[in-house]
């Protein structure tokens, strides 16, 4: 990064005595963030991603207020108005039960957000500690953890998730659980690799030389330096998790009706293409834009946070 090569002049110790203002004390962080913002703003796709994600979050937050027919999300039907094309009354048209698609899509954002957050969250919570431990401790501990991880990686994720859901029975909760179970190995892999490289750094040894205990080192030295790739991966996985949940929905193991979940909506709506195009188009667009957003955002973050780590 350009910034690191620049040396800020050393101010003389005269003024150093007077108490510093917040701005001065945090000058460096402020500068860092401004730098990030600057680099981010330079990249078109990153900004696109950010915009999409923000939009999505807003929808998730205020969906119920925006939806013209909130009851449509809780299974209100109106057979007389089924499969209406988009109109002033129904912006996105209506589905096969006469529910307003616009409302359902908007309300769906929250479901999707929930899905993404839980899956990636769980995966990270399981994966990151395992990864750090494996990477730092080495020896048989590492061997065991990595073997198990590789085992899970070798098993086809979707198939496994599917088997799990088939066992637990359909429903978002189960499908989220299943996906989390197949998702964590990715984090172990990532974090383990990163930890391996970080623990070779001098400052880790330096910490040991002043008598730091292992937990302290892991928490204060290893973890902070593993953070950026984790953040990047999380933002990418958000999208992918939503997508996978949708895929399970397609097989019929997704959200239960009448819950407004985009994947489930498409999997019903797909049989209505092309004559009732609007039915699948809008939830489809919902997923598409969300996943696109999170991926672009992730890419952007990668470029500014750690250009080095690869997508694994």
């Amino acid at each position, binding site marked *: 990064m350009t910034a690191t090569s620049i040396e800020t002049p050393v101010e003389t110790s005269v003024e150093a005595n007077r108490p510093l203002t917040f701005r001065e004390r945090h000058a460096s962080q402020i500068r860092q963030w401004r730098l990030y913002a600057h680099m981010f703003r330079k990249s078109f796709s990153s900004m696109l991603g950010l915009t999409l994600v923000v939009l999505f979050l807003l929808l998730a937050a205020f969906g119920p207020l925006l939806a013209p027919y909130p009851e449509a999300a809780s299974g209100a039907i109106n057979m007389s108005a*089924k499969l209406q094309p988009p109109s002033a009354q129904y912006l996105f048209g209506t589905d096969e039960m006469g529910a307003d698609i616009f409302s359902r899509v908007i309300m769906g954002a929250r479901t999707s957000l929930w899905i993404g957050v839980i899956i990636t969250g769980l995966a990270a919570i399981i994966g990151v500690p395992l990864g750090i431990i494996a990477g730092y401790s080495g020896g048989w501990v590492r061997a065991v953890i990595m073997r198990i991880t590789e085992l899970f990686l070798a098993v086809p994720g979707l198939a496994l998730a599917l088997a799990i859901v088939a066992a637990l*029975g*359909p429903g978002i909760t189960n499908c989220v659980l299943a996906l989390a179970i197949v998702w964590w190995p990715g984090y172990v892999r990532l974090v383990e690799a990163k930890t391996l490289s970080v623990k070779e750094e001098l400052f880790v040894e330096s910490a040991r030389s002043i008598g730091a205990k292992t937990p302290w080192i892991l928490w204060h030295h290893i973890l902070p330096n593993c953070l950026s790739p984790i953040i990047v991966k999380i933002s990418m996985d958000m999208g992918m998790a939503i997508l996978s949940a949708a895929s399970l929905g397609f097989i*019929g*193991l997704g959200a*239960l009706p009448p819950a407004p979940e985009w994947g489930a909506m498409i999997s019903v709506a797909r*049989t*209505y293409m092309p004559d009732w195009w609007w039915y699948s188009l809008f939830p489809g667009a919902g997923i598409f834009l969300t996943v696109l957003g999170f991926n672009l955002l992730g890419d952007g973050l990668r470029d500014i946070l750690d250009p080095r780590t690869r997508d694994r």
Partner: protein
Amino acid sequence: MFGKIFRNIAIAGLLASSVLGSPASAFERTDKGNVIVFGGRQAIPVLDPHVRYDWSTRMLQQAVYDALVKYEGNPADIKPWLAEKWETSADGKTWTFHLVKTAKFHNGDPVNAEAIRYSFERGLKVNKGVAWMLKDFMAPEGIKVVDDYTVQFDLKAPYAPFLSFLPWWYIVNPAEVKAHEVDGDYGQKWLTDHAAGSGPFKLGRWEPNVLYEVESVENYWKGWPQGNNRPAGVIFKIIREPAAQKAALQRGEADIVEGLTPDDYVQIARAKGIAIEDHKGMTTFGIKFNTQKGPTADINLRKAIAYAMDYDALIQVYNGAASLETSPLPDAMKGFVSVPGIPRKDLAKAKEYLAKSGYANGGITLPYVHVAGLEEARRIGLVLLDSLKPLNINVEIKPEQWPNMVANGSKVETAPAMTSVYTTPVSTDPDAVAYQYHKNSWGQYFAMMFYDNPQVSEMIDKARGSSNWDERAKLYADIQTQIVADQPEVFGMLQNRRWARRDYLQGFQFSPVRFTGEVDLYPLWVKAE
């Protein structure tokens, strides 16, 4: 070397693409003649007529095998087939069948009494698929070969529906089967994807999960109704996605498809060159209550729900291609009576019953289980959910995989409060439906309501035992009324059977007794324009 290969590829490519570029070809033509393509969703894992049956399987079984008798027409009646005539003893326990002498198996062997005996024996011994129909009334020993072309069945007890089951007992060629028997498996392994029948078609290509082809037998012993127009064969092609099915039909890659969504049928009917087969079927739909456990054990609650249900919506779900049940029995069934006072939407009444029930002001959540992937069932769930809101009863719609659903439904403890079940009676005899309400049926998926009314069970036993139709008709009338009174389920609708076909496909014959989607391939033919 390779240069040459690639040149050839390029050339072939140009040719092929010019072919593909041209507008969708109609039905498949082969040197042998026209091949009809049937686009269906359900694969055929096992063809053995005594091991499995479901609509797709039985469609091909019917094509390659013959039975003593055959269902035809609407309303379905039993036509002599391998048996040209039969008589039954006064006590109704002995049946004697006289076979046609001309019938031949595909390999040329005659279809004789021994073949019949063996087939029935096999069906009973293997004890799978169709066995349940007769096993309680007939032992293998009870089948006697009188002479080459006469066979006699001795039943343990008089069994009125006996004849109505025989169309599903297909006759296999003992010689061939025995030849492929592996450690006493009655040739099950072999018959999984081979056939030893005498039917109008014989097996062609057999590519599991892709396509199953049958080729017409030129000199079929019973001849062909469409004469020389008989197709060279039929290909049953697996097309899973309704969208793909529709596309295939429009492109003429398939000549007839089943299982489109109700709205699709409406839509595609407008397309040029496509006709819709739309017939009233015998498949009943009911939302079965668990009458033994949980809130739904309370008859008043059941009544309340039944009166709250929006029945018109049921019809709308099918775009009108359905008719409401007026009795547990389908209209097309013998002995059907329309029961007066069968519940229709009436909120006042519903609230009344609710008040009498243990849940005077609702506030409960009931599960509604349906087979995952059954669109209509899911929508009916939504209708139910919407209908019960006024009663302040919440519905949790649960799609279940079929095996799980069946497993849960086999025990009172695990059976959900409400389950949506489609049932197609295997015969036109009222017993086929009535018996679902007999206590002995507990554990079957269609008996998930665990209906227990001793007096009804007793009447059913009586009815199936008697051979006097008038007496039976009377009994069945009472049975129907009583069942409706007990409300073990919300009596739904009879959905129409629908297929979309190219208009050049002729000879389609509908018979309500067949399963949803099942078609009798025998009379079909293609009218070349």
